[in-house]
């Protein structure tokens, strides 16, 4: 019996006060089914994601698919502790042996989780990189946080990761602000992998890239998954990206998980009306 690396239960992130039953129709948050909206008709509360539960196992790739506004990114940012969810729990085997809810971690613990135990790649490079720090420096930051104090050692380690993600080493001391989008994503991936995290979160890693560049980044993610044996959660609105990378997939809509299953089952035998629409809408 393999234990889950990450167990998420009831993850909810709302904006605004909840009426919780004061309205005649009841609050959005209390509905079990897909309410057809992320905003409560009674109280106006916005539920970016609500009652999201799933497990991630060591070495697997879990996909999260859904249209924009479905709450995918909110789930990712919550897991990376970019913001605190309104409620919910997440137990991460790499943190306190999975005994403590990471959403209750104190600030130094949160920093440790973000710097050592997880890595993230955002859709927008400027969110994940300091564009006015060299490519090597961006990778070095996580090493420096881990008390590396030899410039030569840091450089050789950063060069390793950059080479692994196919960033030309003669660009190592250039600013990512002047890189192409595809190259920026590669630097982000190199940064996410430094310090050998247990879990890497990919938030629309190829969205907005040219098709050929997208293919290169997808190949890289596939190779990294094989070579580093790291667990990955990948968020995308693109079913083909999910189909290529993920073994299991969650389908999100209006902040809720409407369906989950094996990726091939989701693609070939979708059950939920929304998933069927999504699959039948694919090009």
């Amino acid at each position, binding site marked *: 019996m393999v234990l889950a690396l990450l167990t998420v239960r009831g993850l909810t992130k709302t904006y605004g006060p909840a009426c919780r039953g004061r309205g005649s129709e009841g609050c959005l948050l209390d509905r079990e089914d897909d309410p057809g909206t992320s905003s409560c008709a009674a109280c106006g509360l916005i539920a970016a994601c609500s009652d999201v539960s799933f497990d991630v196992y060591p070495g697997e790739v879990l996909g999260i698919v859904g249209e924009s506004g479905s709450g995918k990114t909110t789930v990712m940012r919550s897991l990376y502790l970019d913001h605190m969810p309104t409620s919910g729990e997440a137990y991460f085997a790499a943190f306190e042996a999975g005994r403590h809810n990471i959403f209750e971690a104190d600030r130094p613990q949160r920093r440790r989780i973000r710097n050592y135990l997880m890595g993230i790649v955002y859709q927008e490079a400027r969110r994940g990189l300091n564009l006015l720090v060299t490519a090597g420096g961006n990778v070095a930051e996580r090493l420096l946080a881990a008390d590396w104090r030899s410039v030569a050692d840091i450089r050789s380690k950063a060069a390793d990761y950059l080479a692994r993600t196919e960033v030309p080493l003669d660009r190592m001391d250039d600013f990512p602000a002047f890189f192409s989008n595809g190259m920026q994503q590669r630097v982000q991936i190199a940064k996410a992998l430094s310090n050998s995290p247990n879990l890497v979160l990919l938030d629309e890693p190829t969205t907005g890239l040219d098709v050929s560049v997208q293919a290169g980044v997808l190949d890289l993610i596939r190779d990294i998954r094989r070579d580093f044996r790291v667990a990955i959660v990948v968020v995308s609105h693109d079913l083909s990206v999910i189909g290529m990378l993920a073994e299991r997939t969650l389908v999100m809509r209006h902040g809720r998980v409407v369906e989950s299953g094996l990726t091939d089952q989701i693609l070939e035998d979708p059950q939920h*009306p929304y998933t069927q629409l999504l699959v039948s809408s694919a090009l």
Partner: protein
Amino acid sequence: MEQAPILRVRDLTKTFTMHVLGGKRVEALNGVSFDVSPGQCVALVGGSGAGKSSLLKCIYRTYTATGGAIAFKTASGDTVDMASADERKVLEVRRDEIRYVPQFLRAQPRMAAVDVVAMPHASNGRLEEVRKDAGAMLSFLGIQPELQSSYPSVFSGGEQQRVNVARALLRPRRLLLLDEPTSALDAGNRERVLDLLSAARRDGAAMIAIIHDIHVLQALADHVLVLDNGRAAEFGPLGRVDAARYVGGQP
């Protein structure tokens, strides 16, 4: 002496509900039951739309069965119901025991043929070793070494099919689900693939194969399951079912 079945399918039903089409329901399988034992090959025959592919996909769990049971006996002796087992269990069975070979190669894009064959087995040994075996098997199937490092997306249909078969057979699996494994092959390559499949059978692999060619059926199968409109019309040993009625080709 016949061994205990490795797979027991009971009252398997699959109905698609198409919400996009106003909730239209399509029945693909209706009450299908049959057994397969180690070393047996059951040929699935029947007209197009009879439910052959749906049956394979239900067993592999690409389709979720609507009703019935698909009891698979694992190497460790456990019984896993592929109709209802949790995703993790299904993935484990897929990784170690059941291999599905679709009619057309669905490989990761931009991956060399030799890696397409080797990668699914990389966790069962050292990659270099697996890759060497993959190369040998591709060579046996007539895919020359210079082609092995190319992407299969540029291959002919027949070449892709051989890559597909090689990928399934590189390491032994206890149950193979084959969707027309030789449909795109010329006579010579067909014989090579049949040789490989027969060898796998002799080694104890059970098979369920969609077959449209009487020659292939007679060479490979020992049982026939005739599907008609989602129902099992006939099931029995090769000699007792008149398979020729359902497939083309000359005996």
